[in-house]
């Protein structure tokens, strides 16, 4: 979660031989569904819900509405962001911009209703659940608008500051992903919850910086300082290696101190190994959009491994 893709996840070029046997109408429907999922950020909803379910499993929390609330908020914030950026995206992502512009009204109403539903659902979790649900939207408002001139301009300045910008985004999502299931379950914040929070915080930070490699010129033009803008792509890759390795060390330390179980630590470590491989591709592949999606898909790997390790599914 927390990263965005500006490219199609797969080529829209000529049909591959195996596709020749599939009726064109079915292929067309398939492309349309893929477009809707990628351009509207709907695929991020699924990944965000998987992250919350991961927290449920790791913290042994009973199933509650948190995954649904996070999914709704994810759609509202990311699709809303794409509506707001549709004009700016016309150059960097013309297909996505055209999709969003064509369905602007529908997306606008959908995002409003999904956030409204998320807020209403969060009431069942109490005041803390409500506050956490409002957090990503609140950050987004401060980031994307000048509604509160003083705070708004302050946050806009923060958005340009190196590390601070990605940390704010990562914090908002890590709090939502880890905090909401806890708030709904009325559970207390344990050392294990803190470890999980740090894992999601650092991981979301890394996933936020990966798309910045592609956006170097655009970020430079508007004065936003990101790792690739300040340190260049090669050093950014090394920093991402460093962060992933630091996270691995942190997980190993948590395992050795008994906070993490072996099963959970193993699943997370495999995921971090996957992240290290992805970090090698940063700045080296020709489709950075796919790289960002691959980064998000790591959570699916971790969740699947957790299911296997903890429940034997």
């Amino acid at each position: 979660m927390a990263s965005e893709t500006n490219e199609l996840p797969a080529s829209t070029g000529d049909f591959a031989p195996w596709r020749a046997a599939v009726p064109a109408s079915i292929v067309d429907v398939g492309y349309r569904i893929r477009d809707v999922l990628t351009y509207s950020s709907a695929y991020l909803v699924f990944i965000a819900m998987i992250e919350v379910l991961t927290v449920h499993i790791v913290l042994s929390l009973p199933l509650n509405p948190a995954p649904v609330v996070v999914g709704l908020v994810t759609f509202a914030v990311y699709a809303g962001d794409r509506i707001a950026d549709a004009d700016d995206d016309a150059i960097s992502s013309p297909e996505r911009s055209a999709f969003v512009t064509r369905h602007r009204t529908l997306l606008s109403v959908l995002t409003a209703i999904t956030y409204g539903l998320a807020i209403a659902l969060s009431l069942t979790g109490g005041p803390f659940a409500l506050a956490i649900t409002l957090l990503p939207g609140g950050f987004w408002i401060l980031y994307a608008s000048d509604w509160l001139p003083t705070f708004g301009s302050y946050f806009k300045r923060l958005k340009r500051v190196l590390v601070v910008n990605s940390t704010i985004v990562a914090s908002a999502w890590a709090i939502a992903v880890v905090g909401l299931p806890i708030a709904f379950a009325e559970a207390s914040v344990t050392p294990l919850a803190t470890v999980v929070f740090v894992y999601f915080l650092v991981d979301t930070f890394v996933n936020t910086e990966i798309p910045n490699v592609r956006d170097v010129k655009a970020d430079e033009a508007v004065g936003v300082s990101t790792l690739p803008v300040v340190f260049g792509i090669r050093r950014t890759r090394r920093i991402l290696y460093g962060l992933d390795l630091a996270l691995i060390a942190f997980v190993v330390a948590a395992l050795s101190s008994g906070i993490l179980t072996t099963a959970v630590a193993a699943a997370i470590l495999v995921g971090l190994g996957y992240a290290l491989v992805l970090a090698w591709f940063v700045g080296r592949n020709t489709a950075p959009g796919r790289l960002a999606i691959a980064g998000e898909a790591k959570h699916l790997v971790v969740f699947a491994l957790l299911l296997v390790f903890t429940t034997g599914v």
Partner: protein
Amino acid sequence: MISPTSIAVPLLFGSVALGASAAILAWRARPNPGAVSLVWLLIGQSWWSTCIVFSLSAETAAEATFWTKVGWIGVMTVPVAWILFALEYTGRDEHITRRNVALLSVVPTLTVLLALTEEYHGLLYVRTVGVTAHGSVLVEQGGVWYSVAAVYTYLLGVLGIAPILGLLSSGATAFRGQSAALIVGVVTPWATNVLYNLGVLPEVGIDPTPIAFAISGVAYLGAIDRFRMFGANPAPAWRAKQFLFDHIHDGAVVVDGHDTIVDVNRAGAAILDVDVDRVLGRSASELLPLSEPFRAEDGAEILTVGTESTSRSYDVNVSELTDRHGETLGYVFTLHDVTQYLQQQQRLKVLNRVLRHNIRTEVNVIQGYAERTTGDTAETIKQRTMRIVEISEKGRDAIDLFEDAVNDREGTSLADLLERSLEAARDAFPEVDFELESPAEDAAVSEGLSVVVDNLIENAAIHNEGEDRRVTVTAEIDDDRARIRVADNGPGIDDYELDVLNSGTETPLRHASGLGLWLVKWGTEVIDGSVSFEPNEPSGTVVTTTVPLR
């Protein structure tokens, strides 16, 4: 934990979901008029519903009381936001000043403070009255200040509805839809609250007003999305009327049926040399010459203000204002500055006199002296002085055109007009063969056409120096217009002359050779006609004039 009535709870959640959704849509619609106020209104009502949900799910009486008290922030945000929204949305935002917003917020602020400190005074009490079978704590509210807050809320509600009601009869479907949805959105919860406070509604364990916000949310969403509340906004219409009244160059004074000035625009105040704020409420007779002081000039009602040298004249028009029964409400006096027009009219009269009498008198004197001598010089003097007389006559014709004297309403016979013109031409140019093709039926045209036709025929004849000199005048009637074609076989009109004519202006270096073609152009313009020039075959020009029939 949440219990009271099974339907109330989902409706409360629904009101929060719909209120939050509508708030997000309204927030995105900034800076449209009313968007920000509507966001606050929706936040207020959603917070109220939220606090009731938390109160119902509270496990202790203290917790339930706390959320009920905090809910007053939302309760009192709604009426203030509503009145601000109504003023902005309908274009009356000149009333939204920091001072007025602060004044509007006094009662709500006091109410919230009294709710939070209720245990110390009881002016607005919040107390638990029991626990339901499901474990929900029931809270009761009341006290003197509760009534004050309720009345204040209803008052702002009605005041906000008033300007929006006017849009229900708007010609635009969008505005009718928007206003209807807004009124449903605000009346439903307030009516619910009134009925609840009167004890008419069945007891559901909570104040049911936030439940009605579910209907409000649907109404507001409908107004925003279905009726494009922030896509088609009526705010400019109200402001435009005031703007036009304030900024038109003409003075405007509104007088009621009792001769009292009730409004005056800036231009009106400047013309009458009065202060806008001080003149309101004064008798109109003191300022405006309503009866005797009107100085009639040629039938027009002219008001002259100022001293001799700096005086200005105004054409006064009085329009009656009536109600829907036709009863007189008052009058609007408009004062149109005609000073420059009157001055030009005066100058034209002087020029007319000079051209009509003075030049001819001087020319007669010169010709008299010329007749005392003989020879070519005397003949040349006579010819040139006659030319001066002709030019002065054309100048006089031009003045007649500008004075609008020829644009008569009744009109004159086209056939007679053409006959007269040709007869004069035959006398003046005996060497030219004139031919007239009259229309099958006669029609009435403006007398001003004679100036046009005279000059066209003269122009066709005077420049024709060939052996066989012919000028053909053809007239046709086509529906409500007359078309007169004057064709000659002369050398044709120089392109340079036509370019100057088409440009509409002359300079010392770029000008036509005389007044004739200008008189044709001005004459057709004055009588709402048109003129076109085409080359004739094998030589000459065809000039076509089209003029309306009388």
